[in-house]
C-alpha cells in the first residue's frame, strides 16, 4: 500500500519496524491486560458470592423483627410460581450471557491486530448464519413465553371461594386495612392466617401507590377510582416486611407495612379481639383519663372504638388511621417507628419532623406531660 493510505494510528506500525524485543514486550503487556479483563469478567461472580454470604446474616429492624425482604426467600404459593419462572429465565439468560460474552472475548483476543496483519477477508454476511441467529433466540423465547402466559392466566383468575377477603386502601403515606367479612378495620399491620388464600382488593384514596410484600410475591398498583385484585397463600407464619413501591409523594420512603402471618387459631383470636370494645390495660387511672380527655382533639380524624366521645366511634369521614387497639401494634407511623410511648410522644408533637408532608397536624402546643398522658392512653389500648 502506498504511504498515503496508511492510517495515522500509532500502534499500527509496519512489522519490519518493530524489533523482536519490542514484540515480546507487547506480548507481555497483552497478557497483563488479559488478566485484568478476566478479573473484570469475574467481578459479578465474586459479587454473587458476597450476596449469598450477606443473605444469611442475622438482621433485625427497629422492633427487633427481621426486615429483610428478599424476593427469592419464597414464603407463598404465588412467589413460588414466580421464583420457578425466574429461575428458568435466569438460567436461559445466563446461558445466552455466557455464549455472547465468550464469543465477544474470544473474537477480541483471537483476532487482535498484530503487527504485519494483512487486511482480513472482507465478509459482508452469511444468510444461513443470520437466519440461524434470528431463529435460535426466537425459539428460546417461546420456551419462556409458554410458562409466562400460563402463570399470567393462573394468577389473574379468581381466588378460591374460601379465601379471606382483605381490602387495602392506600393513603399518603399509610395503609388502611379492612376485612369486610370480619368487620375489622386496622392500619399498616395486616394479619392473615397461614395456609389460607388471602384475596386482596386494592384501591387508593389519593395518589397511586404499589403494594409489595416481596416474600409473598409481586406487587400491584393501587389507584383511585380503580380496584385491583391479587391473592396468595402464605405457607409459613412470621412477620413480613412490605413497602409502598410507587413514588407517592414526599414521604414515600416512609410508607412501610407489616404482614403478620399467624396460625389460624391465633388469627381467629386476633380477629375476634378487634371486634369487641377495648378493655384498656392501665395502672395509672389519672393519667389514663387525662389522655382520654386529650384524645378528644384527635377524634376529628381518627376512630378509636371504646372512646367515650361518640365521634371517636364514627368511622365516616375520618382521614387518619383507625387507632382501635393501637397498643397491640408493633409499629406506628406506617411501620416507620417502634410502638413505644416515647416514639408516640415524638410523633404526636411533630409528625412532620419524622414524615414530612404527611397529613397529621402537629400538637406542639401540648406540654410534655400531656403528650405522655396521651401516649399512655394510646398504649393502653391493647
Amino acid at each position, binding site marked *: 500500500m502506498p504511504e*498515503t493510505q*496508511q*492510517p495515522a*494510528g500509532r*500502534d*499500527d506500525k509496519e512489522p519490519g519496524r518493530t524489533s523482536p524485543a519490542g514484540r515480546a514486550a507487547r506480548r507481555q503487556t497483552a497478557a497483563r491486560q488479559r488478566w*485484568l479483563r478476566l478479573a*473484570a469478567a469475574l*467481578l459479578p461472580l465474586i*459479587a454473587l458470592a458476597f*450476596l449469598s454470604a450477606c443473605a444469611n446474616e442475622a*438482621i433485625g429492624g*427497629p422492633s427487633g423483627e427481621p426486615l*429483610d*425482604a*428478599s*424476593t*427469592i426467600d419464597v414464603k407463598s404459593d404465588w412467589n413460588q410460581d*414466580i421464583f420457578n419462572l*425466574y429461575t428458568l429465565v435466569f438460567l436461559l439468560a445466563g446461558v*445466552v*450471557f455466557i455464549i*455472547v*460474552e465468550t*464469543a*465477544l472475548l474470544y*473474537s*477480541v483476543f483471537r*483476532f487482535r*491486530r498484530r503487527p504485519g496483519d494483512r*487486511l*482480513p*477477508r*472482507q*465478509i*459482508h*454476511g*452469511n444468510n444461513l*448464519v*443470520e437466519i440461524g*441467529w*434470528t431463529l435460535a433466540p426466537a425459539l428460546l423465547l417461546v420456551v419462556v413465553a409458554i410458562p*409466562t402466559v400460563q402463570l*399470567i*392466566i393462573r*394468577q*389473574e383468575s379468581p381466588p378460591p371461594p374460601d379465601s379471606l377477603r382483605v381490602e387495602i386502601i392506600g393513603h399518603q403515606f399509610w395503609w388502611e386495612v379492612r376485612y369486610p367479612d370480619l368487620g375489622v378495620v386496622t392500619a399498616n399491620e395486616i394479619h392473615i392466617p397461614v395456609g389460607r388464600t388471602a384475596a386482596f382488593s386494592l384501591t387508593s384514596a*389519593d*395518589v*397511586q401507590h404499589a403494594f*409489595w410484600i*416481596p416474600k409473598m410475591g409481586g*406487587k400491584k398498583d393501587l389507584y*383511585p*377510582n*380503580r380496584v385491583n385484585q391479587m391473592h396468595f397463600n402464605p405457607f409459613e407464619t412470621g412477620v413480613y416486611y412490605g413497602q*409502598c413501591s410507587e*413514588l407517592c409523594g*414526599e414521604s*414515600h420512603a416512609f410508607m412501610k407495612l407489616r404482614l403478620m402471618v399467624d396460625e389460624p387459631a391465633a388469627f381467629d383470636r386476633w380477629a375476634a379481639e378487634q371486634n369487641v370494645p377495648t378493655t384498656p390495660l392501665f395502672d395509672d387511672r389519672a393519667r389514663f383519663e387525662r389522655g382520654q380527655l386529650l384524645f378528644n382533639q384527635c377524634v376529628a380524624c381518627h376512630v378509636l372504638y371504646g372512646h367515650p366521645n361518640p365521634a371517636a366511634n364514627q368511622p365516616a369521614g375520618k382521614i387518619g388511621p383507625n387507632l382501635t387497639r393501637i397498643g397491640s401494634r408493633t409499629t406506628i407511623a406506617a411501620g416507620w417507628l417502634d410502638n413505644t410511648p416515647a416514639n408516640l410522644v415524638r410523633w404526636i408533637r411533630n409528625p412532620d419532623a419524622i414524615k414530612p408532608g404527611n397529613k397529621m397536624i402537629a400538637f406542639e402546643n401540648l406540654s410534655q406531660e400531656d403528650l405522655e398522658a396521651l401516649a399512655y392512653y394510646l398504649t393502653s389500648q391493647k
Partner: protein
Amino acid sequence: MATTTQAPPRVLRRPVEAPSGLWSWLTTVDHKRIGVLYGVSSFLFFLAGGIDALLIRLQLGKPMNELFSPDHYNGFVTMHATTMIFMALMPMSVAFFNYIVPLQIGARDVAFPRLNAFSFWVFLLGGLIMSSSYLVDAIPNQGWYGYAPLTIREYSPGLNVDFWIVGLQILGVATIAGAINFFVTIINMRAPGMSLMRMPLFCWMTLITTVLILLAFPVFTIALTELLFDRHFGTTFFDSTRGADPLLWQHLFWIFGHPEVYILIMPAFGIISEIIPVFSRKPLFGYAAMVLASMAIAFLGFGVWAHHMFTTGAGPVAYTFFALSTMLIAVPTGVKIFNWLGTLYGGSINLRPPMLFAVGFIGTFVIGGLSGVMHGTVPVDWQQSDSYWIVAHIHYVLFGGTMFALFAGIHYWWPKFTGTMLNDKLGQATFWTMLVAFHVTFFPMHFLGTAGMPRRMSIYPTGTGWDFWNLVATVGAFALAASVWLFVMNAFISLRRGEPAGNDPWDGATLEWAIASPPPVYNFARIPTVSSRDPLWVEKRSEETAVELGFAPRRAVAVVADPVEARVHMPNPSFWPLVAAVGLSMIFAGFLMPWYLGAFPLITLLGIPVLMVGITSWSFEPAG
C-alpha cells in the same frame, strides 16, 4: 489518490473563514458549529445530571441517612432522570447527527440550516428553564414519568411540576423540529450514488430515530398539554378527585416513553456499527439484516408500551399481548448483537479507545438486554418492577449502552471535530475506570432489587440487608465520576496540545474522513459521488489489494483534490432562529409566572409576537 487537500472555493457568498466571537456563535447556521454547541451543552447537562446522581448515591450510601430531605431527594431522582434523558443523552446524540450525518451523506449542510439553529436554541432555553427550578427551590419531584394523579394540583401544589411540564414542552418542540430536519436531510440531501442501502449505518439509525421521535413525541406533547390544562385551567383529564381514570396518563406516557427508549439507544447502535468495522478493518457483517432489524425494533417499539405497566392490573389479555410483543422485540435486538460479533470475528481488531468503548458497549448492553427480557416475563416483572432491578436494567441500557456508545463516538470523531488526537493512554484509562466503576455501581443494584429494595426511596432503615451493596454502589458512582473527569482532562489536553490528527487517523470507511479535520465550512469542495457502502476504503485500497480481496478497483469518491465547484452556496448566519426560540420559550415559561401579578398571561402573550416576529423575519430575510 487519497490526498484530500481542499483549495478554498472560488465563489462564495460568505467568508470562507468562519468568523469568531460570541455573535458568530449566536447566529451560526453551520451544522458543524451547531453540532459543537449541542455537544458542549449536552455534556454540561450530563455533568449536572451526574451531580444529581452523586447526591442520590451520597444519600443512599448508608441507612437512615438524613443528609437530604425527602423532598430534595425526590427532586434529585426526578431531575437526574429528566436531565439525563432529555438534556444529556438525546441532545448528545443530536450533536452527532448534526456534525456527522451531513458529512457522511456527502452534504454541505442540513436541509434547513436555520431550523437547525432554532432547534438548538429552543433545546438550550428549555434545558435552562427546567434547571432554573434549582434556583427557586422548586425542583420537579414527582418522578421523571410524572404519574398522575400525583402531578395534579391537588397533590403537587408547588411550581415543581410546572417546571417539569414547561421544560419538557419546550424540549419537545426542539426535538420534533430537529427530527423533521434530519429526516428531510437524510431523505433528500444524500450525495449522488448514495442510495439508502449504501448509507452508513449511523445515518440509518439517525433516520429511524427521527421517525420514532416524529411519531412518539406528539403523544407526549398532548399528555403534557392535558396535564398543564388540568393544573391551570381546571380540566379533568387526570383529576382523580373528580373521577378520572389514572391509567390514561400512564398509557399516553408510555406510548411515548417506550419509543423514547429506542430513541435513546438507536443512535448508540449507529455509532457502534460505525466503529466496529473500522477498527476490525472489515465491513459490517449483515448490513441489510442490521437495517431490517432496526426497522423492526422501531416498528415493534410502538406495540410494547404497556410492558411498563405490568403491575397496573391491566388484565391477562393485555399482559399476554404485551409480554409476547416484548419478547418478540428481543429477536431483532439479538440480531444486531450477533452481527457485531460477526463483524469482529475474523477481523483485525485494533483496541484503540473508541473500539474499547464499543466492545465494552456490547458486553454491557447484553446484560441490560437480558435483564430486559426478564422484565418482559410478566410474573417475574411483578417482583422486579419498581425495584432496584429496574434501576440496574435502565443503567445497563442507558449508561452501559447509550453512554458508552456516545463516549465511543466522542473518542472516534474527536479528531474530526477538533483536528487533534485525544491521548491514547488517558483514553484507555478512561475506559477501564469507567468500565469497572460502572459495574461496581450498577451490578449490585441487581442484588438490591432481589433483596426487595424499591426504587426512589429517600431513606431506608437499618437491618434490611441493603446497606453493603448500597455503599458499594456509592463508591462505584464516585469512581464513575472520576472516569468522566479523566475524559474531561483528556479533552482539555488534546485541545491545548494534542497531536494533529490529519484527515483520516483511523483508516475510516466513510466520507467524513475524506476531508480535512476539522472540515471546512463548505465540507466538500466538490460533492462526492458514491458507489459503495464503504466508499473511502474502496478508494484507498490499491488495485492489487482490492483485486485480491474481491473488490473491483475503482475510485468511489470524487471529492478529493478536485477543483472546487463554481457555485458553492452556503447559508448566511441569522439571529432570527434565536429570536423565535426566545419567543417560543416565553410562551411556555409564562406558565411558571404567578397569576396574581398578571404575569402569567403577560409573558405568554408577549411571547407570541416575539415568536411571530422571529418566524416572519426568518421567512423574509434575504436568501443567502
